[in-house]
């Protein structure tokens, strides 16, 4: 089975021919088209946008505007002004927790997250709940690593103010049924629904307008785009009634001596000079992924993760976490006998195989799994069957090095 995207599209894979990059859940590699788009922006169109006193600034403004429309189309958002560019998922969720949370969460309210959240969709809610004297609650997981929907149903009620959960778990790969969860929440509460899409947008078609969530956050760098840009998608009505997150340049309408009025969407939530270069890069990444087709991306990852799960399942002493491969994105989280995941990662690195080892910024989940760390291999469009063979070979080598029989 070959890769979906030509490996030659990715300069870093050409620079390191032996590299078996299996850490795309941490960050993806970038196709040449994205690098070229960023370079072309700075080479040909760069100026500070929204100050349109000269033609170059107008061009930069247009590039920024077009990038927003392109990324909105990628996410299935008709109203592009409801897509706020941020530094990434973390900033996007902090924006909601701070701006919406401070204005709307009251003493006695409840904020619900799940036991599988990345710290970026856990800590901001834990902290805002603490600040607002609200109750912070954690919906537990089923033994195979899914959100326990029965428990969620039982937790919901008139006190529920926010329900925050991920589209796809970064540590397990679990794909959560977003529409079903949203329907459950709507039926039993008036809560704000926030979906962390950091591991969703790069791997699965998003279609925000039909997801029925209030906010969806994601990062560009996990979907072939540059680091330092991501987005928060919201609903116009909610965004317009929210106070700003940060204040300063660009986000204002009039600054009077003792009062300021806010700019319209999306600018109200984008204080300071925007990151036009990376927005252009993210738009190029959307072009690239849509060129492959997001359905094809999902099918490719599913095929790889099925292959890998079968192949790794035959290794003595392996334990794979999370639901069956059909319900996982291209992530396989595992431990091997009593070999610590960090030792595994070092040994695999010796064979050019890059995996992540550790708590995956999901310490609450690790506690629930009863482990300090797992090893995680994650697949993307440039991975192929040879990557899985290299992973398997390296795992056998690790077993041999640590003195396990049957090498």
């Amino acid at each position, binding site marked *: 089975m070959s890769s979906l995207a030509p490996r030659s599209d990715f300069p870093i894979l050409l620079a390191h021919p032996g590299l078996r990059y299996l850490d795309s859940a941490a960050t993806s590699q970038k196709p040449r088209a994205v690098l070229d788009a960023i370079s072309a922006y700075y080479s040909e169109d760069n100026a500070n946008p929204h100050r349109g006193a000269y033609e170059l600034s107008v061009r930069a403004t247009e590039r920024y505007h077009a990038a927003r429309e392109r990324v909105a189309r990628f996410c299935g958002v008709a109203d592009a002004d409801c897509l706020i560019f941020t530094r990434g998922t973390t900033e996007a969720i902090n924006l909601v927790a701070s701006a919406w949370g401070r204005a709307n969460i009251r003493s006695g309210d409840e904020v619900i997250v799940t036991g599988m959240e990345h710290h970026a969709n856990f800590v901001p809610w834990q902290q805002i709940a603490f600040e607002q004297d609200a109750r912070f609650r954690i919906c537990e997981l089923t033994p195979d690593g899914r959100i326990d929907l029965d428990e969620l149903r039982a937790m919901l009620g008139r006190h529920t103010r926010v329900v925050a959960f991920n589209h796809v778990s970064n540590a397990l790969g679990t794909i959560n049924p977003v529409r079903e969860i949203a329907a459950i929440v709507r039926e039993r509460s008036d809560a704000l629904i926030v979906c962390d899409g950091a591991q969703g947008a790069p791997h699965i078609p998003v279609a925000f307008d039909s997801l029925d969530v209030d906010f969806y956050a994601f990062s560009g760098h996990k979907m072939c785009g540059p680091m330092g840009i991501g987005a928060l998608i919201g609903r116009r009505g909610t965004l317009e009634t929210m106070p700003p997150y940060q204040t300063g340049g660009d986000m204002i309408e009039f600054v009077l001596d003792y009062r300021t009025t806010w700019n319209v969407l999306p600018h109200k939530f984008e204080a300071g000079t925007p990151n036009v270069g990376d927005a252009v890069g993210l738009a190029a990444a959307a072009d690239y992924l849509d060129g492959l087709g997001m359905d094809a991306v999902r099918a490719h990852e599913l095929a790889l993760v099925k292959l890998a799960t079968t192949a790794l399942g035959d290794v003595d002493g392996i334990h794979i976490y999370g639901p069956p491969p059909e319900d996982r994105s291209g992530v396989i989280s595992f431990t091997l006998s009593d070999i610590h995941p*960090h*030792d595994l990662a070092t040994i695999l690195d010796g064979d050019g195989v890059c995996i992540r080892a550790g*708590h995956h910024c999901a310490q609450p989940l690790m506690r629930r799994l009863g482990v300090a760390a797992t090893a995680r291999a994650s697949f993307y469009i440039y991975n192929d069957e040879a990557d899985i063979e290299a992973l398997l070979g390296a795992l056998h080598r690790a077993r041999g*090095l640590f*003195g396990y029989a049957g090498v």
Partner: protein
Amino acid sequence: MPDVAELYQSLILDHNRSPRNFRVMADADRSVEGRNPLCGDELTVWLRMDGDTIADVSWMGKGCAISKASASMMTAAVKGVARDDAEALFENFHDLVTGKLGDDKVNSLGRLAAFRGVSRFPIRVKCASLAWHALHSALLAPGTSSAG
């Protein structure tokens, strides 16, 4: 990429598999916790001093093979050793794992020289020195505290 076999010497794998002095010390007069929040490794080092000499030392904890073997071999190396000599050993060990120790001095480290491969794997220096930092803190201040 250096050969991982340089890092995982048989002595290190042996101490990982069967750590020495791996016990709580009931009559310790000081203990220190060491933590590496990046990887979740955590250990405790217990000390009983006799004047300026380490009369007994033990440890418990969890972590990767490098951090466990380092803690185990450290306890074996400093038991019965004077405080100043233990500190000097730490200094040499730290230089070893960061690649700063001269070849002439490597042999003076005895079995601890098994960690010389760590210098080729900079991200594992923290693993190798976690227990030593805890020991260092314990030698500095009597009582119970945290390091790392």
